[in-house]
C-alpha cells in the first residue's frame, strides 16, 4: 500500500461515481432548464433539450395569473405553525417524560410511541370527521391541528434531555426557579441539536404533504403549494414551462433549506432512522 499509487487509484471511483450522481442530478437540472424555456422550444417535437436563452415567461405566468403566491403563503403558514408548535409542545412533553415522575408516565409514553406505526390511511377518514366537527374543514386550521405535535418530536426531545447532565437544572430548581423557567432558560439553550432536528423534519413533512391537504381543503384560495401545483398541472398541461416554473417554486424552499443545513438534515434523518 504505497501512497502514490493509492492517490492515483482514486480516479477509478470517479469513473463510477460521477456518471451515477449525474443520473440523480439530471432530472432536477432538466426541471430548472425547462422552467426557463420558451413555449416554442417546449411545444415542438422532438422538444428541445437545452434552452437557447432564459425565457421567464413561465415564471411571469405563474406569479401573475395563477395563485402561486397565495399557495406559497399558505404552505409557509402551515409549515411554520407546525414547526413552532412541535418545538414548544414537543419540548414540554419531552421534558416532563425525561425529568418528572408521575403515575403512568411510562405507559403513556409507550402508548404515544405506539401511535407512530399507525398508518395514515387508517386515521384519515375519522380525522376528516373530527376536523369537520371542529368546523375546520377547508381552512388552514385543518392542516395545522393534526400536525401540532408528533410523538416523534416528544420522543426525540425526551431522549436528548435524558442525555443532559441534571446538576445545573437542580441547582436552578433549588434556587426557586419553576420547572417552566428551568426548561426555557437552562435546558432549551443547550438543546439546539434537538430543536434543529425537530424543526427540519417537521418543516419537510408538512411542506411536502399532499394527501391530507387533498382531503381537508376544497377551495383553491386555501390550497397549499403541493395541492396547487398538481391542480395547476391538470389545468395547464400544455403550458409546461409555467408548470415547471411552479414546480421550481415548490421545490426551492426545501432545497435551499437542505443546502443551508445539510449537516443537520442528514444527522437528523440518521438519528430518526437509527433510533426509530
Amino acid at each position, binding site marked *: 500500500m504505497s501512497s502514490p499509487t493509492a492517490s492515483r487509484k*482514486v480516479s477509478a*471511483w470517479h469513473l463510477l*461515481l460521477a456518471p*451515477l*450522481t449525474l443520473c*440523480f*442530478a439530471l432530472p*432536477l437540472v*432538466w426541471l430548472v432548464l*425547462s422552467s426557463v424555456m420558451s413555449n416554442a422550444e417546449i411545444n415542438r*417535437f422532438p*422538444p*428541445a*433539450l437545452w434552452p437557447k436563452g432564459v425565457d421567464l415567461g413561465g415564471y411571469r405566468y405563474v406569479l401573475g395569473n395563477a395563485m402561486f403566491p397565495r399557495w406559497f403563503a399558505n404552505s409557509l403558514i402551515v409549515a411554520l405553525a407546525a414547526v413552532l408548535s412541535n418545538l414548544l*409542545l414537543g419540548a*414540554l*412533553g419531552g421534558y*416532563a417524560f425525561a*425529568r*418528572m*415522575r*408521575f*403515575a403512568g408516565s411510562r405507559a*403513556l409514553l409507550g402508548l*404515544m410511541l405506539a*401511535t407512530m*406505526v*399507525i398508518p395514515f*390511511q*387508517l*386515521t*384519515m*377518514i*375519522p*380525522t*376528516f*370527521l373530527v376536523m369537520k366537527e371542529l368546523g375546520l374543514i377547508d381552512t388552514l386550521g385543518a392542516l395545522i*391541528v*393534526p400536525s*401540532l*405535535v408528533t410523538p416523534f418530536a*416528544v420522543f426525540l426531545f425526551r431522549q436528548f434531555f435524558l442525555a443532559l447532565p441534571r446538576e445545573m437544572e437542580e441547582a436552578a430548581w*433549588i434556587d426557586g426557579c419553576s420547572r417552566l423557567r428551568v426548561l426555557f432558560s437552562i435546558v432549551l439553550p443547550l438543546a439546539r441539536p434537538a430543536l434543529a432536528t425537530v424543526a427540519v423534519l417537521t418543516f419537510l413533512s408538512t411542506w*411536502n404533504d*399532499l394527501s391530507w391537504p*387533498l382531503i381537508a381543503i376544497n377551495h383553491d384560495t386555501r390550497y397549499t403549494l*403541493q395541492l396547487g*401545483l398538481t391542480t395547476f*398541472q391538470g389545468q395547464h398541461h400544455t403550458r*409546461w414551462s409555467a*408548470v415547471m416554473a411552479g414546480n421550481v417554486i*415548490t*421545490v426551492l424552499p426545501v432545497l435551499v433549506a437542505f*443546502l443551508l443545513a*445539510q449537516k443537520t438534515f*442528514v444527522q437528523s*434523518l*440518521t438519528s430518526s432512522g*437509527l433510533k*426509530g
Partner: protein
Amino acid sequence: MSTLPRALTLAPGAAVSPAAARRAARRRARRETATAWGFISPAVVVILGLSIVPVIWSLLLSFRADDLVTPGRWVGLDNYRALVQDPNFRTAVGNTLLYSALYVPLSLLGGLVLALALNRRIRFIGLYRTLIFVPFVVSATAQGVLFSFILDPEFGAANSLLHKIGLSPQGFLTDPDQAIYLLVLISLWSGVGFCVVVYLAALQDVPPELVESARIDGAGRWRVLRHITLPTLTPVTVFLLLWQLITALQVFDLIYVTTKGGPLGSTGVVVYFVWQQAFQMFTAGYGAAAAYVLAAALLVAGGALHLARRRQARTEGAVR
C-alpha cells in the same frame, strides 16, 4: 438517579416531625404530577385524540354503510365480504404488492451499494453524496409533476432522447405495461438517498481495528465485506426493510399526481382505493374496511420482522 438532594428540601424546618415530612413529600409529589400533566396534556390530547380515537372510529366505520354526510347503518361484515369479491380491490392489492416487492429490495440494495461506494475520502465525495441525497427532499408531488413532463409521450425529454438515438417513442406512464415499473423507478430515484444516508452512518460504526486485523490476516475486500461489514449492518438493514416496506405499502401522492391509478387500473394501489372510496364515491365504511385490511398486512409484516430480529439476536447471543 433520584431527583433532589433530600437535605436541602428539609432545610426550612429541620425539626419537623416525620409525619409532617411525609405530608410535605406527598404534597410535592402531587405538585409534580400536576406540573407534569400541564406539560404533557397538549401533546397527549393531539396525539392520542388524532390516533387512538380515529383507529377505533375507523373500525366501527368499517362495519357500517356510511357516506360521511347522512347517518349510516350497521352492516356487520358486509364491507369485508364485498372487498374479497371486489376486482378493483384485488387489483389494488396486487399492484401494491408488485410495487413493494420491487421498490423495497431495490432501494435497500441500491442504498447499500452506493453507500459502500461513497464511503471513502476522495475529492468531490461531499458533492456526490449531496447530489444522490437531494432528490429525497423533493416532494412526491414535485417528483410526479416533473416526471409526468419528462415522460410525456409528446413533449417529454425522454422520447426526445430516444428519438435522437433512433429508438421508437414509448408510451411510458400512459402504457399499462410500463407505468408501474416507471413509478418504481421514480420512487427509487428519490428513495435510495435515504437508504444511502442511513447505511453511510452505520458504516462509520464498523470497527476499523477489526477490518485492519482481517486485512493483516489476508482477507480480501470481498471477505471483509461479507464477514465483517455486512453483519455489522444487519440491525440497520432490518430497520430500513421495515421502514421502506411501510413507505411502499402506503404509496399514494406520487400515484395521485402522475397516473391517478390508470392506465386501465394498472397503477391503482390500496391507499388510492381507500381514498377513492371514502372521498370520491362517498362509501366511507367500505374505504375504512379496505384501510383495515392494509393495516392488518402492515401489522403482520412488522410482527414477522420483529420476530425475525429477536430470533437473530438470540442465535447471535448463543454463538457468543
